[in-house]
């Protein structure tokens, strides 16, 4: 491989490796961390006899790892679809020279496997190393007792292997467009064509709507049952999982519409309108770059609202006993913080995807941005446009996530303790303002951070690049 190709492979696959490494490191760290705590509990004569703590730790970490990997896979799918879009002419040329579409797609899938492998190994090292380092500090500080624990834990290989698998799958899904590249495209003019996107199948949309409606039915049914029996939580919980699967599966129906509405709120200046149009130009790409963020925000909000509503309802039901209240409050706050931090990690992965999508969007629009520069778009207007685009994506995901999370959280709390005597009315919701504020602040921060690199790249485009054909 020549130096130039190695360089372009680094920029093309950098984000993929980063995301795979982050997911893998997170998964490995959680497994090693829970393994360590498990060993600590076993070494302790009091808790040593039962395995409940270990089992509980393992179940919760599987959920968090699953969310992180899902985010990572969606982001990687996007990365690969954009990579393929940028290679259309190259692929068309090889098709012209006799390569089959399947061989071309297979080549992309193999790159995915390699990206996944590299990322997984990096994550394995970083995740285990990170936990070992923290454990060493904790031991030195005397917080953690000295007991034997081997980091050569075979379970830690599971998240790494899962990352390889999901990255490879993401490459396969993301490279679907290779099949539509015709050899003719190597001959045609260099005119920039819009990225043709396969319409999502009716089956998928149908399944999404079915899951959503059935899930919603279970969710509200669970709340109704909860008014007489705490078993309602189980019904509402399955309703939550089913309906949210529907939301994620049908994100391509929901997010572009939401983006349009948010885009209209951005104002009517040329900059804002162009940004709004760009955000919905490739609905599938925009959906993929926001859905990870949507999942994270929804989960954080769900936990926070559920626990807060739960706490408030208990407090009201117990007749404002201040001593009781303080105890519940501390416990719930701790749980909320721990959950939010763990899910927040998935939000970081989603953020990487957002930066990536914005940067590649700018790269693909080089000539259009050059045209705008030639027509008199100032560098500042260009920066503002990228910022507005970033803001539109983040705002949409955060707003939808807060809305969904509030509904889920409300349903969770009411389905569990709606039957408690003295519980407040059905529509009571406890809003955890500090958590919501942190989510919104995180969204603002992400908007700013995500737009820095793409905006710099956009302003570096010379207006001359819009002239003539390559």
């Amino acid at each position: 491989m020549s130096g130039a190709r190695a360089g372009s492979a680094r920029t093309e696959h950098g984000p993929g490796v980063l995301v795979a490494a982050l997911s893998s490191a997170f998964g490995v760290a959680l497994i090693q961390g829970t393994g360590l705590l498990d060993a600590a509990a076993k070494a302790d004569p009091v808790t040593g006899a039962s395995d409940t703590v270990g089992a509980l730790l393992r179940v919760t970490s599987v959920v968090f790892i699953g969310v992180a990997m899902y985010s990572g896979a969606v982001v990687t799918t996007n990365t690969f679809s954009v990579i393929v879009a940028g290679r259309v002419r190259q692929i068309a040329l090889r098709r012209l020279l006799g390569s089959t579409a399947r061989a071309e797609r297979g080549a992309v899938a193999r790159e995915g496997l390699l990206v996944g492998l590299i990322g997984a190994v990096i994550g394995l090292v970083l995740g285990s190393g990170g936990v070992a380092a923290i454990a060493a500090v904790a031991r030195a500080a005397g917080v953690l007792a000295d007991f034997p624990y081997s980091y050569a834990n075979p379970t830690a290989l599971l998240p790494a292997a899962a990352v390889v698998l999901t990255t490879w799958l993401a490459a396969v899904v993301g490279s679907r467009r290779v099949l539509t590249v015709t050899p003719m495209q190597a001959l045609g003019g260099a005119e920039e064509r819009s990225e043709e996107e396969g319409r999502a199948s009716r089956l998928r949309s149908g399944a999404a709507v079915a899951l959503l409606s059935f899930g919603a039915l279970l969710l509200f049914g669970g709340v109704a049952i909860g008014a007489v029996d705490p078993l309602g939580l189980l019904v509402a919980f399955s309703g939550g999982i089913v309906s949210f699967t529907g939301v994620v599966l049908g994100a391509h129906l929901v997010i572009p519409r939401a983006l349009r509405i948010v885009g209209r709120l951005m104002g009517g200046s040329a900059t804002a309108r162009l940004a709004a149009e760009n955000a919905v130009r490739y609905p599938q790409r925009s959906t993929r770059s926001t859905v990870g963020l949507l999942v994270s925000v929804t989960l954080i909000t769900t936990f926070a609202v559920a626990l807060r509503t739960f706490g408030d309802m208990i407090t009201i039901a117990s007749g404002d006993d201040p001593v009781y209240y303080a105890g519940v409050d501390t416990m719930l706050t701790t749980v909320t913080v721990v959950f939010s931090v763990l899910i927040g990690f998935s939000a970081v992965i989603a953020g990487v995807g957002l930066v990536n999508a914005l940067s590649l969007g700018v790269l693909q629009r080089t000539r259009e941005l050059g045209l705008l520069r030639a027509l008199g778009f100032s560098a500042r207007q260009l920066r503002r446009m990228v910022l507005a685009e970033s803001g539109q994506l983040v705002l949409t995901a955060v707003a939808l996530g807060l809305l969904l999370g509030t509904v889920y959280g409300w349903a969770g709390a009411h389905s569990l303790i709606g039957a408690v005597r003295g519980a407040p009315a059905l529509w009571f919701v406890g809003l955890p303002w500090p958590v919501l504020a942190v989510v919104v602040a995180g969204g603002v921060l992400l908007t700013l951070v995500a737009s820095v690199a793409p905006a710099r790249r956009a302003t570096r485009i010379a207006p001359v690049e819009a002239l003539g054909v390559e």
Partner: protein
Amino acid sequence: MTTALPAQPRTASEHLEAVARVQGVAKRYGSGDATVHALRGVDLAVRRGEFVAIMGPSGSGKSTLMHLLAGLDSPTSGEVWLGDREIGALDDTALTLLRRERIGFVFQAFNLVPTLDVIGNVMLPFELRGAKPSREERTFIGRLLGELGLADRLGHRPRELSGGQQQRVAIARALASRPQLVVADEPTGNLDSRTGREVLSLLASAAAGHGQAIAMVTHDPIAASYADRVVFLADGRVVAEEGRMDAERIARFMLTLEDAR
């Protein structure tokens, strides 16, 4: 270098009418042994209502000259005047504002913003300025869109238009704000010959009818034959210029330039 055609003598009064003018401009890229002399001292003036074609073999410096005239690039030495303003030494921001207000562009391809409809593309220069067009300007734009046959396509996106229609939208956008200079870079390069001739007639009538100054870079003798004046460049110098020429003479002269290389 042989000069087959004598350069036309210029008078002081012509300079006064010039809306865009370069004087002794040179442009060098790179340094040391790798230095490329794109322009080696060029004088050129475009007057109000004049349609000038800039021709030359590839590498003659015609694109560079156009970039300088359009405020897209700055010369290494020499002066570039747009109206009464010397723009050769302006910084990027100042050049951007200048392009926004005083220059119109028509390119070979990819002229339009794909996410905006026809009227959105035509009004873009006004919106960039943040200025609403006056009633008089709106009347002018309405008439322009009618003349260009776009009146019933205002809500179309570029991808719904043919190449010729897209180019007419670009011309409407370039003329709408009545800039001091319209710069056209191979405006017919991507069009079939009949559509290409239509576009050239539109440019020529914009110059004659609206008094618009237009500088067009091309290597197509037929395109250049629509211009009021043809300027030939070779190796970064003006080697000849003449009033209206027919395509055959232009082609023959271009061949002698190629031979001389």
